[in-house]
């Protein structure tokens, strides 16, 4: 067992970071919305799914004659990310307008919003399975419940090789892209006016209003940013796995939510830490105990962390983040 673990230590580290990076990007959407609204947006997993579908549709529409590597790969990834950001951002904002805002305006409880989130999640899944995916990819006969594959468009090669330590280009790209997005977002929230508004609303909506913050605008922006991050995650996912399906967000969404809680929900840097830690734990756990223990190990660690640090690893929340 230990020998197996040591053999797989380096590959597991690389895979854990690359998996964790996608968790972290999706976790941002949960954590930002929670920070501002104290709402767990369960439909966020479908926002991610929309991102993967949008990226895949773009890819099949453009058509890739050959597998891409190097600069061409990065360029195509950027293009897919832009499309996915728009699609996911619009979906997230649409959710807020249709599923949450009307409840808030009528003074609905947080529980009502939570149920609305679950309903929206199911609605989007089935909408994509029954209509959107079959229509977009012309699959009327097989329907939209089967995975849809992209043409193989990524030429995978090792960019770094040191003994048994090798890093593949797509895995490295996922990690680098995710960290860049995180840093950019962190700077945005800490340095811009809109970012200040988000932090103010997270701290105290009433006082933020008194200080002249337009809360509705802030909430819309929060959903848009969270959605955009999920869109980037969707494009990265498509590069890594070259397929998607209507249910793709489900398990990943749960994991991303777990990552958000692990890092400290409401805390942006916590999402990054939580995502990467969760990814590593899963891969190390699988290497040590076998892949069937992946989820068990992840959740045992979550429970242990929460026992000793109930607010997550970084604890501090969005409202208290210093400018």
């Amino acid at each position, binding site marked *: 067992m230990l020998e*197996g673990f040591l*053999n*797989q230590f380096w*590959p*597991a580290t690389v*895979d854990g970071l*690359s*998996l964790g990076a996608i968790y972290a990007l999706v976790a941002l959407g949960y954590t930002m919305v929670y920070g501002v609204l104290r709402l767990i947006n369960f439909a966020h997993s479908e926002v991610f799914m929309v991102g993967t579908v949008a990226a895949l549709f773009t890819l099949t529409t453009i058509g890739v004659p050959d597998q891409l590597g190097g600069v061409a790969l990065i360029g195509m990834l950027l293009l897919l990310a832009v499309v996915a950001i728009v699609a996911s951002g619009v979906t997230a904002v649409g959710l807020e307008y249709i599923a949450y805002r009307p409840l808030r305006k009528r003074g609905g409880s947080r529980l009502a919003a939570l149920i609305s989130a679950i309903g929206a999640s*199911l609605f989007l899944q*089935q909408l994509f399975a029954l209509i959107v995916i079959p229509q977009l990819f012309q699959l009327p006969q*097989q*329907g939209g*419940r*089967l*995975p849809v*594959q992209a*043409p*193989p468009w990524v030429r*995978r090669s090792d960019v770094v090789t040191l003994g048994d330590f090798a890093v*593949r280009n797509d895995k490295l790209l996922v990690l680098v892209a995710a960290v860049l997005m995180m840093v950019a977002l962190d700077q945005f929230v800490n340095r811009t006016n809109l970012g200040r508004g988000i932090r103010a609303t997270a701290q105290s909506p009433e006082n933020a209003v008194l200080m002249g913050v337009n809360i509705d605008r802030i909430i819309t922006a929060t959903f848009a940013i969270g959605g955009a991050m999920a869109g980037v995650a969707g494009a990265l*996912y498509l590069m*890594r*796995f*070259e*397929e998607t*399906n209507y*249910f*793709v967000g*489900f*398990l*990943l969404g*749960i994991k991303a939510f777990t990552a958000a809680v692990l890092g400290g929900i409401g805390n942006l840097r916590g999402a990054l830490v939580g995502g990467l830690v969760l990814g590593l734990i*899963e*891969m190390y756990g*699988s*290497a040590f105990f*076998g*892949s*069937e223990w*992946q*989820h068990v190990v992840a959740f045992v660690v979550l429970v242990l962390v929460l026992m000793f640090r109930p607010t997550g690893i970084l604890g501090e929340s969005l409202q208290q983040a210093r400018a």
Partner: protein
Amino acid sequence: MRHSSIVRVGVALAASSLVLAACGGGGEETGGAPGGGASEAAATVKIGVLGDLTGENSGIVIPLRNAAQLAFEEYNATNPTTKIEMVEYDSQGVPEQATALAQQAINTDKIVGLVGPAFSGESRQVGPILEEAKIPSVSASATNPGLAQNGWKFWHRIVGNDLSQGGAVAEYMTRALGTKNAFVIHDNQEYSKGVADVVAKTLKENGVTVQTDVIDPQGSDYASTVNKVKAAAPDAIFYGGYYAQAGRLLKQLRDGGEKAQFLSGDGSLDKGLAKGAGGNNADGAIVSCPCLIDPTGKAGPASKKLADAYKAKFNTGTAIYSGEGYDAATAFIEAIKAGKTDTESINEYFKTIDVPGVTKQIKFAENGEPAASDVYVYLFKGDSYSLLGDAKEATKPA
């Protein structure tokens, strides 16, 4: 996972109520017929087909549904005294959904027999319900060995079980492929674990080094499994499971630079394996099946005849379990030809049935297993696969 089952039950309820509504309309029609003109219309009995018709692994079930439909239509075209109406039940492979549909089939639609359930997991759930209602069933594709050990009197299958399949493919791996070091993976579902365990056990008995791992069928990242396989450096990999996951796994193995021979069982015998694996990753993959897909009539003229009729009707070639689906339907047709139109007499008839089918002699052992069955191996190339031969005789592909 808890969330998942709630979601699925919810979907199952919604779907079954839809179907209920739809069939409620149809039921009235047939209910009205005897009052109007029972004497002129031929009597009609209903035979159900239950399985995953639109879900992720529907590619395995649609061919047997089509073949059963073909068999019933051919029979009805002969203007028999008792016609057969086929009723479809789409379980999406989800056991909870299958039980709801079985109740509906028994109580609302009053079926006299069932072709299915298609998968082993749903068979285990639906079996007791059919047993209690005394509805004879013939599955063309549920291969879990445990199904025959429940003492069910109304359950039958026309396909060899995973014990015979797992044993045969393991023998093939050592005999024809010369496997010394194998890696066996499954997704922990009822069928998958069953067949993978038999393969692993048989390989070990033949002196092969075996390592194992398990993947999550709902997961998409199999990196940890790929790392384990690479660390073990096997010369053959066997995957027990269905094609959607098999394709995904094979893709990630090949993307990760793992080149060992890939094998799988009947759950992966679908073009979806090649599609999911992407590019030419599936080329050379070998998949075993207790089923016979033989469009050129290599094994006998009956399979060619079925393939031609199937092609004419559905504009696509015969695929996995189409022959067995045809034979399962034939079993019911023979019973009804013999004048057995209620559930118990059909079941009595199955005890003595002994007619030639497309894939094998249609004859059941006392526990419901087919009296004889062979395991065949198939080779993937491009986006399709072809028959290599009987696993007992087939050689290593060039």
